[in-house]
């Protein structure tokens, strides 16, 4: 039983093919209660397909998944009663106000009238939308629509929340607020699965699976994932990044040279050693630089290292 082990979601060997092409290819993972679990990867990694399987709206070709203690294939209706699924295009009614949308979802999920007003007020307060309750949903910005969608998805106190790319196209301020609402749900022990194509968002999850081409490359906490980064990263700040790249590309111990806005990002095998060598090489070549220092590797660095390492 999933509940007994503390796992709220358990997926084993999930496979889903479209016209013979696997969108999800032997995917296994489990999510404990009260986690924010990320399905992180680029477009086409299988994020949406996985979400749909977990939500009980699509059956896998192979493998099993249980969500909130119910099997998604044998008992999809029970799954649907215990979860909330926010697809990429969440059904907000643009010609209804914020309040009316929430009431509509409360009715749909059969939430008792007594409970709903206070709960709705609390959700809108957390979303910093209290002053917009009478505004038509159609007149909200992208970020506010997503927050309203989340409030609607939460109106019936689901145990499990499945969010498919909720922050796509949302500006950083709204995105941060959206995450703060998610964190506040952890106190209520809600299990959250969130998908994103933005690798910097991975760091906000408590645990995540890095997906690529339907498979899970790695699955762990952000911190432990970054500890698996082979080698280290260096940042060279220079007014002549292109010259820096030219000089350092192909040098011993430097496996990756990426131009960024005001410098060059390097992946190296040994930070102190290559840092000293890079300084020497640039100085000898007369290429100016302000600074060369070890930097914190990102999940993106890990992704690139891992995919390239696999050939």
């Amino acid at each position, binding site marked *: 039983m999933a509940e007994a082990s503390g796992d709220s979601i358990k997926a084993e060997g999930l496979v889903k093919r479209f016209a013979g092409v696997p969108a999800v290819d032997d995917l296994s993972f489990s999510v404990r209660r009260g986690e924010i679990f990320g399905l992180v990867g*680029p477009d086409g990694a299988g994020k949406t397909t996985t979400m749909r399987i977990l939500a009980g709206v699509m059956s896998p070709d192979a493998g099993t998944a249980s969500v909130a203690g119910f099997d998604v294939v044998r008992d999809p209706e029970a799954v649907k009663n215990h979860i909330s699924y926010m697809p990429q295009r969440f059904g907000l009614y643009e010609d209804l106000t914020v309040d009316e949308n929430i009431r509509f979802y409360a009715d749909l999920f059969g939430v008792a009238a007594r409970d709903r007003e206070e709960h709705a007020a609390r959700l809108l307060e957390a979303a910093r939308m209290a002053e917009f309750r009478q505004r038509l949903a159609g007149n909200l910005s992208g970020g506010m629509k997503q927050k309203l969608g989340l409030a609607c998805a939460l109106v019936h106190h689901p145990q499990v929340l499945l969010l498919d790319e909720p922050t796509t196209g949302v500006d950083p301020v709204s995105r941060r607020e959206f995450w703060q609402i998610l964190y506040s749900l952890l106190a209520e022990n809600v299990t959250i699965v969130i998908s994103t194509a*933005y690798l910097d968002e991975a760091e906000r*999850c408590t645990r995540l699976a890095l997906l690529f081409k339907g498979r899970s490359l790695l699955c762990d906490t952000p911190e432990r994932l970054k500890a698996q980064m082979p080698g280290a990263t260096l940042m060279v700040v220079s007014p002549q990044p292109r010259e820096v790249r030219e000089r350092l590309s192909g040098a011993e111990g430097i496996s990756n040279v*990426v*131009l960024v*806005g005001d410098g060059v990002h390097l992946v190296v095998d040994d930070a102190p050693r290559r840092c000293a060598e890079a300084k020497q090489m640039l100085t000898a070549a007369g290429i100016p630089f302000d600074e060369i220092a070890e930097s914190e590797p990102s999940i993106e660095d890990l992704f690139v290292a891992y995919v390239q390492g696999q050939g």
Partner: protein
Amino acid sequence: MAVQEIIAGAAAASVRVESLEKRFGRFTAVDRVSFATEPGEIFGFLGPNGAGKSTTIRILCGLLRPTAGKAVVAGFDVATQAEEVRQNIGYMSQKFSLYNTLQVVENLRFFAGMYSVPRALAEARIREAVAMAGLAGHEHDLTATLAGGWKQRLALGCSILHRPKVLFLDEPTSGVDPISRRQFWDLIHEMAGGGVTVFVSTHYMDEAEYCNRLALMNRGALVALGTPNELKRHLMKGALLLIKCEPLGTALEVLQHNPAVMEAAVFGEGLHVTVQDATAAGAWLPGYLAEHGVECMRLQPIPLSLEDVFVQLTGGRIHQGGESAS
């Protein structure tokens, strides 16, 4: 090298904006904005929804007339020479309209026609675009079958067939896998190296990191301008700490009510806490948390991110009504 030929002649590329203003009725969408880009610069344009970013870009593309002020793009005035402006710029967005049912080369031919590339030059430029985009051998693939990163590079190829001096990119690599993304930005940097001015608007700070200089807009006004490093080091008030502690919820509540804490928020398994002085906070915070029954396992200063800069310079204010639905 194909890129060298593509960028030849773009050296005079530039954007110059002086006291630019755009009003819609009583609403000021762009409020006396001034900045200039240099040829070969990758210039990032950031801001929350409704900040005036899109309006500014529409003006710079010659699609919208400013109410006051001046904008010169690639040497042409947007108000009086809109047609010349449009002939000298390229535009590519995340939702770029490639025709999925056409082959790679057919898409390129279509855009060459749209941009009125002379017939005598078109085939050579298409070959160069194919080489640049790394699509050689795939000219006759159906566009629908290309992977995301490939489509992105094809879209870029389509947008430069007429040799624009200024290239506008709207979230060009969102959703693309990191390896393709890095390849794409390499191309952009190479083009900029030849003198094309690249104007990038995005909500994504990891795209912003690829830009040489960033402009941040909020409520119609320009609120910050500088290199990514300048923004991170000089514009931010306070310092950021990563705190790992138990229980997290109590710690958050306690810190949010402490006047010496500017901001406290959950981040992954820990807290991100902004304070005035990191060294001082390192001394008093663990004891303070312990008094409230919170055990502090780790406390370390961490570098501020561009997102921190963005939120600090725009946060809170966008919620005071007037937010458009753009």
